[in-house]
């Protein structure tokens, strides 16, 4: 691709990009994210938009299940091998460590912790979620490979719990990311969390845990909700 095309493409992308939509009175762009022009060694000028040049901003696609016996078999395998991301988002994450101890032992249900979002397919949102954490949660959730599941732990994810009137924590998690299983309580005991895993297994085996596709289908709606509260949106629209 010649430089002329590249420049044209960049300017088109800038015109279409949603990141330029202002949700706020203030401008939160960091200096390193600002648009800039760089002079190439041969004298031509290249426009750079750091947020869009380093990342792919392609929207997620629906990856529909193939159906039939094969899909049922694969769903059984997915249900029996749930890899949970080790990311504690709130106070509820204190309920996760007991799961690896002899008393609760989640390994016998095929549940394991994984350290990186690329290798995990279940995400426990543990308790209250502040807007600051929500931003990281969205980034992490979008990096997980599909099919992916979300367990919402605690009352705070359902209606805000005891933080319903706080300026910094969200009330309803399902407005921002799709939730498969809610585990109510403040705090739920580890047994409740294990029951949540069993419930999730039932959903996966029945082929009903397709929330990743729901996220892709209603992508614009979810993004609008997310951008309404994350005012310093300094990341691409979809984080591959």
């Amino acid at each position, binding site marked *: 691709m010649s430089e002329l095309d590249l420049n044209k493409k960049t300017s088109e992308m800038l015109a279409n990009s949603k990141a330029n939509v202002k949700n706020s009175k*203030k401008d939160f762009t960091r200096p390193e994210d600002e648009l800039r022009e760089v002079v190439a060694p041969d004298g031509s000028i290249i426009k750079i938009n750091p947020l869009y040049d380093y990342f792919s901003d392609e929207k997620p696609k629906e990856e529909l299940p193939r159906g039939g016996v094969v899909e049922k078999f694969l769903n059984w395998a997915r249900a029996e091998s749930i890899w949970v991301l080790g990311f504690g988002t709130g106070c509820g994450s204190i309920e996760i460590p007991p799961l690896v101890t002899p008393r609760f032992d989640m390994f016998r249900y095929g549940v394991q912790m994984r350290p990186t979002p690329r290798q995990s397919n279940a995400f426990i949102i543990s308790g209250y979620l502040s807007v600051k954490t929500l931003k990281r949660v969205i980034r992490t959730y979008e990096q997980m490979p599909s099919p992916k599941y979300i367990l919402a732990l605690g009352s705070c994810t359902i209606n805000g719990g005891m933080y319903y009137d706080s300026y*910094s924590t969200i*009330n309803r998690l399902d*407005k921002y990311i799709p939730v498969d299983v809610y585990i109510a309580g403040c705090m739920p005991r580890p047994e409740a969390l294990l029951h949540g895993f069993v419930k999730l297994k039932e959903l996966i085996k029945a082929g009903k845990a397709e929330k990743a596709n729901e996220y892709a289908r209603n992508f614009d709606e979810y993004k609008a909700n997310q951008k309404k509260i994350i005012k310093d949106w300094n990341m691409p629209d979809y984080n591959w």
Partner: protein
Amino acid sequence: MKSFIEKLNSKYVLQEVVYQRDDLVFAAIKKENAIDAITYLRDYEDFTHLVLMSCVDWIEDGKYQLLYLLHNPILKNDIGIKVYIDRENPEMVSAHHLWKSIWTYQREMHEAFGIVFPGSPRLKENFVVEGWDEIPFMRRDFDTHEYAEKTYFPRGNRKSNDPAEYMRKKLYPSQPVTAKQRKDDK
């Protein structure tokens, strides 16, 4: 402690002196003299440790009250220096040169109350919230409930119960109700 406070009073004019405990005294100092007094306390009177710095919003008086709590590790004494500043134009002399830990406190004050400390390093950086564009959230004229309802999609029909009463009704319905409880129910 009392003699020390009298000595300090002769140097800087102290107001509202409160002897909270044997080893804890609160005193208000004028804004112009405050950092001077804190420097004197740190360098000459061994109050070398900054325990905390906090802020109170006296909205009725139109004032912010800053509190510098200092600790003397030799005599095991604490002194709290209160400083009143104007609420309309909140500005305070920065103390970042005295303790490095005060940078973070001043950053927090700036974000939560909008108080300006000229010259304080990293003052404008985010501390707790990111991308905040309302008035500072710890000010008492900021209605956090209203903001949450407006912003975070509240789930309707939210009900609250008094835990003691709820448990009595739910778990022990057959137990006789005392006169006091009957009065509370009404």
